[in-house]
């Protein structure tokens, strides 16, 4: 599909399919963002998929023997290799179909957390993207190694408290900034990559379908923002609200790289104008992991967001 064409998919909440391919009964925490993300993704993708899941929150909570929360074919192998395993499945389907041994229509979805993507999974991801496998890689980002007890990852934002970037007298939270995974991914020049959020499910579901459609041209990537109440120190009920605030304050903008064209999605398309972004403090205040922030640290974070938007604005100019 040529870029610029809009595919009419899910327009309203009532177009969302009723079928549930994930849960209930999984062992995720109450209010788990990633659990909601997976639920939305599978609703959009439908049953003809094979999920390859890296070790992490979702894997551990959804496949505790003898119970599985998955209504689609699923494989977990290890922590760092979801992309490699997915590459193998995609190649197998290609070969078996071509040789007339099978007639498989399933699409392959690699699903990993920020731990299994930004850090230990980076090599396998890059390899898969470089080789051009028709796999949709979904990164569910709760911004730390949550399953093992809230340790920092390359996806943890600057200043955030985690157990391995604690707030002490000498060092106050994570020193490094969040890795720009989308820039790394798009450097592989794949047909489709986008950010999405559990707070904007229709946008997320349409992007899942668009990404799956692109798989006959090459790999696709979705970066899904999925807050974690215990890890971010927010109330269980605020998961979606915080995800929404992340978009509204410009911290996590919604955008697409669609066949080389960069596009900001609503409401982020309005946020090029800084006055339209909600104040960052709205996003930071409800989160215990940022409770220690001093005035100058908040200013530093605001500058970071502004800097990111400057970058996005230039991308929009160059690639819009």
């Amino acid at each position, binding site marked *: 599909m040529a870029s610029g064409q809009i595919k009419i998919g899910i327009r309203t909440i009532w177009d969302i399919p009723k079928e549930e391919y994930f849960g209930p009964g999984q062992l995720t925490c109450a209010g788990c963002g990633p659990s909601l993300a997976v639920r939305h993704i599978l609703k959009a993708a439908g049953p003809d998929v094979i999920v390859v899941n890296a070790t992490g929150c979702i894997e551990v909570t959804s496949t505790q023997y003898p119970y599985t929360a998955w209504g689609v074919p699923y494989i977990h192998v290890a922590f760092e290799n979801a992309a490699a395993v997915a590459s*193998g499945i995609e190649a197998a389907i290609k070969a078996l179909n071509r040789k007339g041994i099978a007639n498989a229509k399933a699409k392959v979805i690699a699903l990993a957390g920020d731990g299994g993507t930004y850090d230990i999974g980076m090599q396998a991801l890059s390899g898969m993207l470089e080789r051009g496998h028709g796999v949709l890689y979904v990164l569910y980002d709760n911004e730390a190694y949550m399953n093992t007890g809230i340790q920092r990852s390359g996806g943890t934002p600057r200043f955030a408290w985690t157990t391995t970037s604690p707030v002490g007298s000498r060092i106050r939270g994570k020193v490094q900034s969040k890795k720009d995974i989308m820039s790394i991914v798009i450097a592989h020049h794949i047909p489709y990559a986008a950010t999405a959020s559990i707070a904007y499910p229709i946008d997320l579901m349409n992007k899942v379908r668009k990404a799956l459609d692109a798989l006959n041209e090459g790999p696709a990537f979705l970066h899904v923002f999925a807050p974690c109440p215990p890890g971010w120190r927010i109330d269980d009920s605020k998961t979606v609200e915080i995800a929404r605030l992340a978009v509204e304050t410009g911290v996590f903008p919604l955008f697409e790289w669609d066949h080389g064209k960069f596009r900001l999605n609503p409401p982020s398309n309005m946020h090029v104008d800084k006055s339209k972004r909600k104040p960052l403090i709205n996003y930071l205040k409800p989160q215990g992991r940022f409770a220690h922030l001093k005035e100058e640290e908040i200013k530093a974070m605001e500058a970071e967001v502004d800097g990111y938007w400057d970058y996005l604005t230039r991308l929009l100019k160059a690639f819009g």
Partner: protein
Amino acid sequence: MTQVIEKERERSVVVGKVGLTTNYAIAHAVKDVDVDVVAAYPITPQTTIIEKLAEYVANGELDAEFIPVESEHSALSAAVGASAAGARVFTATSAQGLELMHEILHITSGLRLPIVMAVPGRALSAPISIHGDYQDLMNVRDTGWVIYIASTAQEAYDTVIEAFRVAEDPRVLLPVIVSYDGFLMSHTTEPVEVYDTKAVREFTPRRHNTRPLLNPERPVTMGALATPDWYYEIKYQAINALRVSRGVIDEVDSEFNRRFGRAYGAVEGFMLDDADYILVTYGGAATWNALEAAKEARGRGLRAGVLRIRLFRPFPSNDLVKRLADAKAVAVVDRAIAPGSPVEGPVFKDVYIALREAGVDKPIVSVIHGISQRTMYIRDFYELYYKLRDIASTGNVPRESLYMGLR
């Protein structure tokens, strides 16, 4: 070379006799069995296998997906995915690559996936070495894979074909390693009889519905997390399958003999019927050099013999005991080291336990040789036979490994 030809096989089964390195012979076998996916990362001395396979795929001789993965860990990971999706899969590696994929080795056997992997044995870093020995293979002996060690290019070709049959048998469903000498076999040319592709494919038919696969028609969850309530039973199934595989291995060996005129067994004996002093070896160079030495010793009146271990996992204890029970003294020649062990030869340990468990009380000696391709001279083995004679007559059995060739 031992060949057991039970009956006159059909002449049409052999389509040619070609000079092939063991690596090329293996690539040829992989092509013959019609694999669907090859996922591999280059490492000396495996590279020529995957280069040849890439060539076959590129010119349409082999209809398969060749995935040039970005590391060995990803090689076996991709192979796991492909196998779980129902494809026939092959990979190959050595030394550092085998180490890098180590966690996935356990996962592959735990997930019961019938992948076949060639491992030309190479020394482990540090110090870094590209040269051959069996340290890499010995480091993976507890990963639950079936392991063969070949001694000729012909045997490697034959064994890879058998390996797919064994791996995919519904009673087994375990991955299989075919190992052999790095460089001394991987890169040296030998005459190999290659078979009619149709005959090979008839010998390794596709089987359907023998195991759950990743397929939306029947969604299965693979790789679940097992708590202490369940891990033990799931692991035990795989352990039992490895034991059961021995029966299947023997069946396949017999059938291979009927069809292609060759059988190798779990162990291969040379001049053992009346042997007093026996060297237990594995791989090509050690075995054939030991055999030369044994013949020379025989010429001088010493009753020397060689026993080659071909099937390493599951370990063929009974076969060993039968062939070694009447010897006066035995030495196990290891081309790998188990540092810090009571005696430092890894295969020595298996042989020792097998013999003692069966009540065989003879002196058994551990010899380490051929490390990182340190030359194993025929005279070294010749001297070993005389050493065994001394040990048997004096009763002074060395309690530590003899490191031959060490300066």
